[in-house]
């Protein structure tokens, strides 16, 4: 039996961030990772001999600067060349958004570009108000402290300072759907398709679903390369960033144990005491930080006898069925997308011709069915990282949203059908690509669940929707990183502020723990 000041369960980027912060705070910290390699969703793998894939995350657009500093992430990984977003449509040239979510747009009229910029500026300015809440512990509703009041007050003040008109507009738009906002501001179907796609990627909402604009706000609360809406691929790929997180944590003094799946979290009468590994090995610590899905923490690792019925029921009710599939293709040669300039091929290629296209792709998912004409986000990772594929060959990865976790027809048959549908969609934008496919791997939400230990295969560890945010993330009684079990803290994407490669849940959880000691 070995003892630590704190044990972090889960070696994903949030677990490593929390561990590094606690270690820098003077704690003896150990991270337990179930997989033989830490890095979580940043972990890449080989999907065909000679071909490597990145993890579920394709790009980085919200990595927190404090997290990068804490883990001493090298500049070429904590930032990088801003990559454009290319909207691929049918029979129309692509629209290409450059620098910080379309500061400049190619392929649309000047008027439309101005309209998009107006929308973009409005949303970024409004997202700025929400951002104040994303980098601090959500306020306790019972006993609101001075600093919480100050944050609320300053948000209110910021709102007022923007002017009466603007603040009214913010309150009007906050819970609207992205389709109505798109129609209000834009005329170009490609741009409407893009905001509809970005607002709904990774949440089970269609563009016309109420509150779907929140997804876009969330995206625009993130910063990369020092500006809102920036996006980059780290040099060496997302997997390299994962390795840098691991190196940073180890450098901060964290003990890392891989291939060490936790079987149980030990607690007695509301106080945590340690963990037992599947191997039977026991570690004691007064602080356990669960940087894994909250459902795994409380439905699998903590004995039901150690938590309240209502709390366990609330955890069980977290909506966390993932709806994004990932397709990795091993290609004989780099694909060509006619109309897309060479320098834009390293960016995000979003297939979506209109807002209706996105909505239509969403509709069948409500009934457990696959989209007949999917929208998707395509990237060509090996263009920037030649090492991912053998010389001359290439890789393509695609995120396909609105793919139900519980597929009515069953995944045995559905997997190959979705793969064929996706390839047909790719063929329309990159003619001839089908003939060059050497191997394909499709990861449906249940596959992501298994590979990355994410219940439901949901990369945000729970839907990022209005009822599961802020003081209700993941559930109200555990929304401030602490839980009903004293000494057990949450630090995954399932906690405030939510998913994406930000490191903030881990950082804020660690800060909360360290602040608690000083109180």
């Amino acid at each position, binding site marked *: 039996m070995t003892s630590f000041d704190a044990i972090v369960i889960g070696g994903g980027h949030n677990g490593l961030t929390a561990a590094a912060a606690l270690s820098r705070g003077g704690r003896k910290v150990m991270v337990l990772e179930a997989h033989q390699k830490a890095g979580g969703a940043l972990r890449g793998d080989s999907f065909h001999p000679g071909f490597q894939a990145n993890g579920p995350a394709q790009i980085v657009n919200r990595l927190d600067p404090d997290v990068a500093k804490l883990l001493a992430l090298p500049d070429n990984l904590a930032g990088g060349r801003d990559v454009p977003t290319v909207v691929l449509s049918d029979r129309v040239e692509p629209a290409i958004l450059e620098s910080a979510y379309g500061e400049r747009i190619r392929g649309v009229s000047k008027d439309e570009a101005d309209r998009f910029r107006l929308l973009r500026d409005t949303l970024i300015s409004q997202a700025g108000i929400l951002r104040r809440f994303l980098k601090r512990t959500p306020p306790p509703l019972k006993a609101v402290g001075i600093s919480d009041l100050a944050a609320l007050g300053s948000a209110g003040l910021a709102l007022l300072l923007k002017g009466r008109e603007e603040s009214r507009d913010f309150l009007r738009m906050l819970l609207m759907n992205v389709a109505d906002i798109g129609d209000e501001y834009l005329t170009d179907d490609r741009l409407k398709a893009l905001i509809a796609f970005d607002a709904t990627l990774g949440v089970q909402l269609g563009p016309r679903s109420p509150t779907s604009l929140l997804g876009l706000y969330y995206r625009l609360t993130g910063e990369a390369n020092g500006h809102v809406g920036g996006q980059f691929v780290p040099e060496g790929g997302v997997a390299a960033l994962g390795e840098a997180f691991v190196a940073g944590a180890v450098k901060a003094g964290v003990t890392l144990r891989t291939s060490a799946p936790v079987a149980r979290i030990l607690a*007695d009468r509301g106080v945590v005491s340690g963990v037992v590994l599947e191997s039977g090995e026991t570690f004691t610590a007064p602080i356990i930080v669960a940087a894994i899905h909250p459902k795994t923490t409380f439905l699998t690792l903590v004995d039901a*006898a150690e*938590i309240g019925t209502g709390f366990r029921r609330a955890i069980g009710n977290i909506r966390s069925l993932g709806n994004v599939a990932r397709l990795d293709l091993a290609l004989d040669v780099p694909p060509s997308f006619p109309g897309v300039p060479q320098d834009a091929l390293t960016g995000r290629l979003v297939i979506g011709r209109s807002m209706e296209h996105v909505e239509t792709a969403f509709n069948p998912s409500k009934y457990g069915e696959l989209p007949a004409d999917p929208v998707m986000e395509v990237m060509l990772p090996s263009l920037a990282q030649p090492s991912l594929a053998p010389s001359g060959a290439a890789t393509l990865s695609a995120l396909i949203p609105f793919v139900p976790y519980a597929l009515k027809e069953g995944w045995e048959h559905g997997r190959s059908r979705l793969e064929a549908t996706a390839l047909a969609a790719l063929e329309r934008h990159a003619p001839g690509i089908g003939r060059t496919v050497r191997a394909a791997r499709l990861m449906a939400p249940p596959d992501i669940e298994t590979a990355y230990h994410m219940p439901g295969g949901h990369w945000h560890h729970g839907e990022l929707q209005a009822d599961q945010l802020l003081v209700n993330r993941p559930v109200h009684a555990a929304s401030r990183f602490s839980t009903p079990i004293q000494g057990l803290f949450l630090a995954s994407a399932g906690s405030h502020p939510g998913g994406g490669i930000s490191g903030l849940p881990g950082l804020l959880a660690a800060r909360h723990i360290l602040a608690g000691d000083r109180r």
Partner: protein
Amino acid sequence: MILDPAQRRALHVHIAAPRLETPFHPRIQALSTTNDWYSWAGYKAPHSVFDDELEYFAIRSTAALFDISPMIKYRIRGADAERFLNRLTLRDVRKLKPGRVQYTAWCDDHGHVLDDGTLFRLAETDFRLCCQERHLPWLTDSANGFDVTIDEETETLAALALQGPTSFSVLDAAGFAGIETLKPFQLARFDHEGHEITISRTGFTGDLGYELFAPADIALSLWDRIWNAGQPFGLQAIGYGALNRARIEAGFIVANADFTTAEAALRTDRVRLPDEIGLDWLVDLEKPFFNGRDPILGARQKKSLKHILVGLEIEGNIAAEHALVYHRRTREAGIVTAGIWSPMAKRNIAIANLARPYGERILDDLWVEIYALRELQYQKMMKRAKIVPRPFIRLDRRTATPPGRF
């Protein structure tokens, strides 16, 4: 959706019988001369059978038979049953031996009482939980993560309370051999016409008494067996009016009469922690975690308990039910939830819910304002009240083993 009206009606036949009848109903109806029924958990139950007053005296002087079939009954079985119940309820179920019964209560996550009741340990992994309100969703939600099954037995299991000084003699005469060895809160199995029935030495009267549980289809023959054996011992069928007097004397509380259960409360300040309704003695902080543990402990440490349940002795002989309690005749301090003139204690007694510090630090100068409606005119009386311990009566025969014979 079914559109044919005849078919729709056929699916809703229960509307035609808004009150269910218990398995003993034919016998009680035949005995009833007052035709005085009320609804107990959806069942037609007697408020009185022949005479409220005489029925009460049957409990205290001879023996009384009270149909408790509408009581909510859950069967909890499985390898984790003990662990499940230990997390659910306030007392330590590990200390409850097979063949024993525990009075207990259970709370939600906030420590607010959901109900009180009795827990029967029929065997190592086999329990029965009896209570006032229905809790199936709470129990099944609580069962997640445990190897237990939960069955609702309210309809299939008939139950009778046989209470009073001659109740032992009645069972003895009815041929339940070995009943004399039963200690309070102990249960045993007996045979009735080839079926197993359970008899426990429990009750809600503070008197010598038993409770019998039998499958519904042998209920009537069990009633007849007891009834016939009981005739020489003054056995009477009784209604809730008589039982209510006896339970107030015994100081027992009734859910949603003396306190509002957490699931029934509509107003946020009506919920109660165990310590606020006199159930603090059930809370076992030494046992493993249980629902509501932290808030109960927290309220004790922070001294944030808001209410207290007390026994009152009130001057005069006018029952003070639902009267307001005052301090120094002016400041409102609480409410009487149940009150009677006690024929046994020869005192005017009441159970009251007071707002702390009344009943906690301020114990003197309490008054009760009684409104007596006399021929369409309220007579308002301010009566002096004194906090006294519960139960208001203690009967040695309740615990004597073997019980006295008549």
